[in-house]
């Protein structure tokens, strides 16, 4: 999937000089980075570096105070989240937030974009058509659940799932959007080893088979080394290094930013 001549196609996501302030606190201080088309790009850095703020600002949840965001060459700076969702950008939230009073299946179905049944007055006057759409959507959601090994839980209330399973549903909702670029916020945090392997394999497979580009925030650096290329390192609202994991691990600035966190050179 990756490759192509330099300068041939615009990157999936290009962030330039993005700035976000909260009062006097500068959360993003002129962040610039690229997410190449077809890549699994990593985003690492110590707590408070601004990674989640970057996600929120890129995905339209927070208005930026400066800078630009472009999606495949299209300027989408400060576009609202639903517009970006339609344009093929989905974002997962760090701590999964499922719709509590819905089943797992409904949690996925609701995430499909452009549903005619969401536009009044169609739910009242085109019942047959909407029933057909819903049946097809249900099938699609079940297929996504099957890929995530969650098909058995389709009719369970979302609250009955374990934390790790909720992370998978969160990923499933991003898949339902049909997004070609997914921002994943700590997909492996708080997940047991077995499920972690499963999540990593799922991300790699979706990238390989479906050509989905990912930008992944993750603290598990071994996982990042395994999955991600390139990797951007953020500290104090800035990108301080970019490159392969091996390259950024050797960067003294990165080591300093992590301040005491052991970053051994890659074997």
């Amino acid at each position, binding site marked *: 999937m990756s490759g192509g001549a330099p300068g041939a196609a615009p990157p999936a996501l290009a962030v330039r000089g993005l700035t976000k302030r909260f009062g006097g606190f500068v959360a993003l201080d002129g962040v610039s980075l690229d997410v190449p088309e077809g890549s699994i790009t990593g985003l690492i850095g110590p707590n408070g570096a601004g990674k989640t703020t970057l996600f929120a600002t890129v995905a339209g949840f927070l208005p930026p105070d400066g800078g630009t965001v472009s999606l495949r060459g299209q300027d989408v700076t400060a576009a609202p989240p*639903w517009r970006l969702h339609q344009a093929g950008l989905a974002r997962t939230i760090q701590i999964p937030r499922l719709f509590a009073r*819905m089943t797992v299946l409904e949690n996925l179905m609701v995430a499909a974009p452009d*549903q*005619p049944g969401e536009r009044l007055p169609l*739910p009242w006057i085109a019942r047959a058509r909407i029933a057909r759409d*819903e049946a097809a959507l249900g099938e699609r959601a079940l297929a996504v659940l099957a890929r995530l090994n969650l098909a058995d839980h389709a009719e369970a*209330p979302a609250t009955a799932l374990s934390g790790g399973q909720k992370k998978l549903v969160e990923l499933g909702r991003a898949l*339902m959007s049909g997004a070609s670029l997914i921002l994943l916020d700590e997909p492996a945090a708080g997940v047991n080893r077995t499920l972690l392997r499963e999540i990593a394999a799922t991300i790699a497979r979706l990238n390989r088979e479906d050509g989905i580009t990912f930008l992944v925030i993750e603290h598990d650096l071994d996982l990042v080394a395994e999955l991600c290329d390139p990797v951007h390192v953020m500290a104090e609202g800035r990108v301080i290094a970019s490159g392969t994991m091996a390259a950024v691990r050797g960067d003294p600035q990165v080591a300093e930013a992590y301040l005491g966190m052991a970053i051994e050179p890659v074997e």
Partner: protein
Amino acid sequence: MEQAALYLATMLTLAGIYAALALGLNLQWGLTGLMNFGGLGFVAMGAYTAALLTAPASASHLGGFGWPWWAAWPLAAFAGVALALPIGAIALRLRADYLAVATIGIAEIVRLAVRNEDWLTGGPLGVPGIPRPFEALGLPWGQVAYLALVAAVVAGLFALAQATARSPFGRALRAVRDDEEAAKAVGKNPARLRLQAFLLGAAFMGLGGAMLSAFFKFMGPEALDPVTTTFLVWVMLIAGGSGNNTGAVLGAVAVWAVWAATDWLAAQLPGELATRAAYVRLFLIGLALQVILLARPQGLIGERIGQR
């Protein structure tokens, strides 16, 4: 016997009107999580719109256009929407509690306007002589026929509310209610969805007001008070089961039965005790709400997860 039948028809008609209000509130609160504490304002808009359009011409208030009910009632629903639109457009973008404050404020403004704008509403004298559909049939059949009309309207509103709740639109509303951030992350526009649900609920309340004014055959500032028009409807929805349309209707009928029964009981008390009992009743309704919220927060029949 005939007296009892008449009484029953009267009570059921009012229960039906309350069911319409509870269904409207369920669209707003139950399905979308919108705290509307200004039910009275929307009911009053519908009630006065229908009253002025259907009443005979009079010098004491605007118009009296003598329209038939079937032409006036849809406009009454629209009057509810017309009031909801500016409030919703402003307050729905803010945090949930701001809407509660804004709706309380607007209901008070409507109440004061109704009392003081004599040229429009007749002020304290109100709008008398509102025709009630089928009253030409005499008693008790006119009353029974009106009950049938109210029941038919409520059945229609129930069908509409069910079609809404079970549709992808209803699912998107529930998403916004359960978690706004997550709803945005799955591509929903919370402000737009909230506004639509708010307007739809306000239309139900406006229509309820129209049915109420025809039932009373009179509309004045004393005919609507916040306790019976706003808070009683909240009690009905919460007791019946917020998020469930059947629960809203059931709660309206059940709570109205209790409310009417205590009214009758209080009237049996001698002299001053009867006056005091009216206030005890308010206290009891508040207490009942507390008990329900603590003991059975989902109401008689709560929202079902799945199986839609």
